């Protein structure tokens, strides 16, 4: 029993932090641009396969590849998603959602076509190798590091929103876009900033978890589903809610896995999300502003 | 006919409507005036069932209709218009009024074309028959207000709640609209509770006026008495007002 409790605690911490990283970008876009970015899964796929592309086809080392991949991600998010889809179809939500989904499907299937599972894609981003025992639980250093990095990135994000001028403008935009425009905020530039920022947490997350999380071209879907569930549970676009919800879902997954059967973890999280939606519409922190 | 008994509504700590009581008798036109933010539209929403009152009761024709859902209130015989006209934008004028005809009360033996025919009678009554196939988004303000009136009348109410029907109309349009309301009252035999800001109209039309300020009823009585009541003048008219 003690072992299970310890496992639950440790894995809640680890998974919660990882889910937090995954969902931060999604919540940011939800809160600032007020759209549901169903193509967010592209960031996960591009991280892995973009880096691999630079490393194996272009022949760069790991660090230059990562930098190249970051640039690729930001360009992709700004040009294809923001300028290509969001700006043109902001008024027609169904078209917007479908187009983003189609872009995601294109990228995923392209990755599968160019680098199928048999191509042996891997990211050598292990920082510390080996495992250690935390109490009665054995985890790898990489997992702990991923969790710590997750918390660090989240803290940086929150500080950015609370302390910097750009963060203040973004918070104002998420509350009342017209008033912000009247106050002189440069909406477009802030949107660019938000899109670029939203790409960073998932990229860092995948780089950190690649050694122990399975990599395949279709990894975008389940991770997007997790991000969506965290966003819905926490309140769309609310960072406080995202933080609370990621640890809550991490807790649910850990509890179901260690106290029951791990097959049901996704299902259990879904049931909890639905129940919260019914009894508290809008999620845990239903305010629909970013902080 | 309609009795408001000690009704209150609080939003957070703010009392939008604070223990208001009055009644409206059958066949009357009662005016409801007060400064902006006095709680007039909130009171209307409380009668219609859009909000639930925190205290008090709303009694209509002997039945307690407090906190009934709006469609049941409509079926009971109360209808309303809106301060800012809310037509069905993508439907024609005829379509909007037909919605009222079909759903206002239980109609045996009525198909869509029968309902459209009846709707056209209401449109003709308010003078919009020639615009029956125009989309509601293409009508001007006066026509929109007439459409609102036609739609409310189409639900065959016994009690009509008018919310600032004269706002934004020039004097000629306003007097035409007033005539329309009067002929509606005569022809359909309805009782009216009328929120209004245009003093000239409401003092002409109403038999009694109720005054609200900060959610509380501060005066009630004949129009001339209200116009000269010191409390009303201070709260609303802001200084001396020429006597009628």
């Amino acid at each position, binding site marked *: 029993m003690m072992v299970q409790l310890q496992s639950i605690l440790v894995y809640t911490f680890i998974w919660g932090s990882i889910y937090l990283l995954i969902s931060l970008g999604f919540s940011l876009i939800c809160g600032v641009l007020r759209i549901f970015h169903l193509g967010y899964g592209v960031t996960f796929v591009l991280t892995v396969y973009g880096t691999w592309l630079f490393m194996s086809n272009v022949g760069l080392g790991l660090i230059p590849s990562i930098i190249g991949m970051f640039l690729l991600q930001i360009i992709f998010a700004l040009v294809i998603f923001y300028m290509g889809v969001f700006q043109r179809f902001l008024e027609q939500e169904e078209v917007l959602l*479908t187009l983003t989904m189609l872009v995601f499907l294109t990228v995923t299937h392209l990755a599968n076509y160019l680098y199928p599972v048999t191509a042996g894609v891997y990211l050598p981003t292990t920082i510390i190798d080996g495992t250690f025992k935390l109490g009665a639980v054995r985890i790898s250093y990489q997992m702990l590091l991923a969790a710590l990095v997750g918390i660090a990135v989240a803290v940086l994000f929150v500080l950015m929103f609370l302390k910097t001028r750009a963060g203040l403008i973004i918070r104002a935009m998420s509350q009342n876009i017209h008033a912000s425009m009247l106050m002189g905020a440069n909406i477009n530039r802030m949107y660019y900033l938000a899109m670029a920022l939203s790409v960073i947490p998932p990229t860092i997350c995948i780089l950190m978890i690649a050694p122990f999380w399975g990599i395949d071209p279709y990894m975008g879907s389940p991770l997007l589903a997790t991000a969506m569930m965290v966003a819905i549970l926490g309140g769309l676009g609310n960072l406080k809610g995202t933080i609370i919800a990621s640890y809550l879902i991490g807790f649910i997954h850990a509890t179901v896995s260690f106290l029951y059967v791990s097959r049901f973890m996704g299902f259990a999280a879904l049931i909890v999300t639905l129940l919260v939606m019914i009894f508290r519409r809008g999620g845990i922190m239903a305010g629909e502003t970013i902080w | 006919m309609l009795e408001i008994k000690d009704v209150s509504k609080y939003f957070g700590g703010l009392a939008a409507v604070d223990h208001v009581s009055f009644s409206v008798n059958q066949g009357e036109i009662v005016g409801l005036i007060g400064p902006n933010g006095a709680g007039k539209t909130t009171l209307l929403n409380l009668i219609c069932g859009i909000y639930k009152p925190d205290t008090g009761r709303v009694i209509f024709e002997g039945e307690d209709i407090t906190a009934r859902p709006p*469609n049941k209130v409509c079926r009971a015989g109360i209808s309303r218009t809106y301060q800012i006209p809310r037509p069905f934008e993508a439907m024609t004028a005829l379509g909007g009024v037909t919605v009222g005809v079909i759903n206002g009360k239980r109609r045996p033996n009525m198909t*869509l074309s029968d309902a459209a025919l009846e709707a056209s009678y209401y449109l003709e009554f308010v003078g919009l028959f020639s615009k029956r196939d125009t989309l509601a988004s293409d009508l001007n303000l006066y026509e929109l207000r007439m459409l609102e009136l036609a739609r409310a009348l189409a639900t065959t109410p016994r009690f009509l709640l008018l919310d600032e029907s004269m706002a934004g109309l020039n004097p000629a349009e306003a007097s035409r609209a007033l005539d329309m309301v009067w002929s509606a009252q005569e022809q359909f035999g309805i009782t009216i509770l009328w929120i209004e800001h245009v003093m000239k109209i409401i003092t002409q039309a109403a038999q009694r006026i109720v005054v609200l300020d900060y959610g509380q009823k501060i005066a009630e009585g004949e129009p001339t008495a209200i116009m000269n009541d010191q409390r009303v003048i201070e709260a609303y008219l802001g200084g001396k007002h020429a006597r009628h």
Partner: protein
Amino acid sequence: MVTFELKRDRVLLRWGDRKYEWIIEPRYWRNPALGVIFMLILPLFFYNRPSILTMITTANLLAAVVIPLSLQMIGTGRVNFGPQLYLGIGGYTSALLNLHLGCNPLVTLLANILVCGSIALLLSPITWIARGLYFSLITLILPLAFLDLTYIYGDLFRGEVGLVGMSALINLGKVKLNYLAYFYLSLFLMLLYMLVADKIVRSRFGVSMAAINEDEDVAQMMGVNVNRYKVFNYVFPSILIGIVGWFIVHTFRTFAGVTYLPLEFMIKILIIVLVGGRAFIYSVVPGAYFVAILEEILRGFGPIHYVLFPVALIVAIVVLPSGEGLFGLYHRRHHRDYFPKFRVRRE
């Protein structure tokens, strides 16, 4: 009791104190009649090419899924991102009953209607509890959760392989005749759905549904029982989609949730709505045929077709006139709103 009356241009049905009428407008029926005749003759050209027959049968079935979806969108005022949930539920119900209990197709049809109806009724509160976007999100997740469930209980649902060998609806002996018969049956199903949806939308219920779509609060103030309409418009189309699942089970005789439940299938359905033209129920047919034919053409390119298909769809969405899609090219010449047409004649 129930009486029929035939007037000069309409059929009246009287039942108790209710009156239903069907106005017959010869001008209105000419183009659809031509379309139907064209679709009836179509398979005879491809009698010897079963792959094309399967393709247009699939197109008919896709249309039969999207027509209830359009009805649902018009009636509830929300976009349902997961109609294939009921395809999966209906299909598995029919398949499991048929395989394990040996029920014949009629019994599985009734069971299908019952199961889909009850589950839809159970889930219907989300139509009024969840606001627009949340409704779409919940419906997006539900089919994936159901797919998860089929994997969890893999021994019952047979996971990715699916269930095979259900009994056929009709068996005419020769395989080619079977394919032909399946096409005509699917065509009949699709046309039936189109007729039902058309009648509902162009009636007094359709007007109230349109009012709910425009402005819910005002509609409620005019006496429309909004929740009842939303529940009906969620449950009824769900049952119709479940019946399509039953049809798939008994004609294709294999059923795997993984074909119909994940994102890829849902994209096809959404595309049909968008490319066909959104507010129209009739536009579903060209949309469905477009998607089915596109998929078949691209399949010839080999494994890269998984990439080409989304790209082709992106091009289609961006290029076609927004909101009207393929049907918009036809609609511009024949003006017909999706609201019922009112004609008031002065006597």
